[in-house]
């Protein structure tokens, strides 16, 4: 007779145990598998966060590039902006009354400082430390836009994850029939979204960096040689770390409610035939 039967016939002592809480590593293992299989599908879910992070990075790094160009060491460097051909016309009257003229051509190099280029493009050329008003309107407006775009991304994630819960109701119901605790379902969803958030953020960072590189090169083509040196890399790195934390945290935050909805799902849901 199988073990379960003998246990069952043993007598009238308590026959029900308590389900164990699985170690986190199991949830990680299962959620990673889910992420791997649904990877491209999930990236679409995460596209909101990818774009918002790309925006955040481009604002951040773009600002850092500007700040680098404004630093006194770079700002006052002279650069050749363009070589301009100039034509002078020399006209005179000879003694016999004839009009004569000759055209003289010369090339003039227009030299400008980085500061001049910045000013000509509408940027304030003063370095942060020297600026009169320490909180320029531009910075807070950027911050506001970034915050807004991140909010939109989070709402997008909540929406997409709720859809995903509806799509996966049978899977969730089945897992609960097989003995999954509510907390396990919550963990599964949160971990999945943390992984996806991390991956989505990485995509967003790459996209944002490419965009910034492109726009900086176009905007400051004349001083392209100075750009790399001007970028304050330590600031950028610190910014990227903050970005990673933000992207992942927001992705998890957006999944909290859908995960709770999923966990509350009754196991009977697995039995339903529709959908």
């Amino acid at each position: 007779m199988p073990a379960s039967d003998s246990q069952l016939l043993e007598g009238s002592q308590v026959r029900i145990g308590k389900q164990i809480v699985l170690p986190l590593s199991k949830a990680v293992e299962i959620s990673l598998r889910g992420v791997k299989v649904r990877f491209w599908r999930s990236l679409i879910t995460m596209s909101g966060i990818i774009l918002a992070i790309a925006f955040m990075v481009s604002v951040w790094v773009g600002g850092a590039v500007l700040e680098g160009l404004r630093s006194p060491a770079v700002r006052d460097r002279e650069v050749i902006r363009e070589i301009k051909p100039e034509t002078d016309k020399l006209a005179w009257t000879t003694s016999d009354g004839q009009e004569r003229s000759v055209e003289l051509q010369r090339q003039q190099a227009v030299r400008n400082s980085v500061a001049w280029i910045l000013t000509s493009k509408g940027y304030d050329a003063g370095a942060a430390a020297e600026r009169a008003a320490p909180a320029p309107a531009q910075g807070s407006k950027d911050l506001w836009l970034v915050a807004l775009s991140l909010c939109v991304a989070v709402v997008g994630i909540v929406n997409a994850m709720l859809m995903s819960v509806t799509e996966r109701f049978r899977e969730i119901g089945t897992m609960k029939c097989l003995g999954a605790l509510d907390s396990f379902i919550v963990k599964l969803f949160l971990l999945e979204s943390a992984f996806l958030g991390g991956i989505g953020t990485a995509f967003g960072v790459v996209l944002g960096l490419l965009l910034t590189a492109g726009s900086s090169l176009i905007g400051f083509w004349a001083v392209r040689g100075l750009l790399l040196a001007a970028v304050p890399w330590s600031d950028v790195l610190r910014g990227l770390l903050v970005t990673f934390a933000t992207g992942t945290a927001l992705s998890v935050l957006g999944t909290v409610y859908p995960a709770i909805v999923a966990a509350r799902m009754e196991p009977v849901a697995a039995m339903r035939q529709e959908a």
Partner: protein
Amino acid sequence: MLGQTIVRTKDVKRLYTMGNVTVEALRGINIEIRAGEYLSIMGPSGSGKSTFFNMVGGLDKPTEGKVYIDEVDVAQLDAYELAWLRCRKVGYIFQSFNLIPVMTALENVTLPMVFAGLNNDQSREKGMELLGQVGLAERHAHKPFEMSGGQQQRVAIARALANDPAIVLADEPTGNLDLKTGTEIIEILSRLNKERGVTIIAATHDMKMLSASDRVVWIRDGRIDKIEDRANLEINIGSVDGEH
């Protein structure tokens, strides 16, 4: 083979409230199911068959009355105990198979073992053994969408047996399968019932199921219409066919 009572219900009633209307899905059901029995629950849709089936499997709680699984009142269990019950005491088989689509056959079978706390080696070994018993050992690395309906249902049967449950609940297990595959599934269930002594409770419309059953419970309008033993069944089967 038949042992003690494994499931017992006492005056089970279940009410559903839909807006202002209260629907009485079950109107007082008393039944004792013995360990090792192969029991079929039959009834037209809307008869309360599914509700009753869910009660017996610990998936739903009665509005009134008691359901005892292995002499434990299901209504008294907390979330952890219910999960334990579903994990180890009961195995579920669904009409639509309900394999986890992102997992292979073996991973599907071992999932309940993971929930029960078995380590990877133990669960792998046992999972392969179970897949072998349903004749799918060589397809252990396939995902559900790479398998036919019959194969998926066999994986689901192996999964239901993962933690050596005392009861296997099958909800229309042949409902989505053709005649031949359905017969195979019934044969497997019947064999497991005899070899392992596992109690099988199946909700079904499928007349093929009747010949495998020890008893058939007919549900109508939330009440037990009649309970027939296999001995009587064989005589009655003609009239049964005519009835539906």
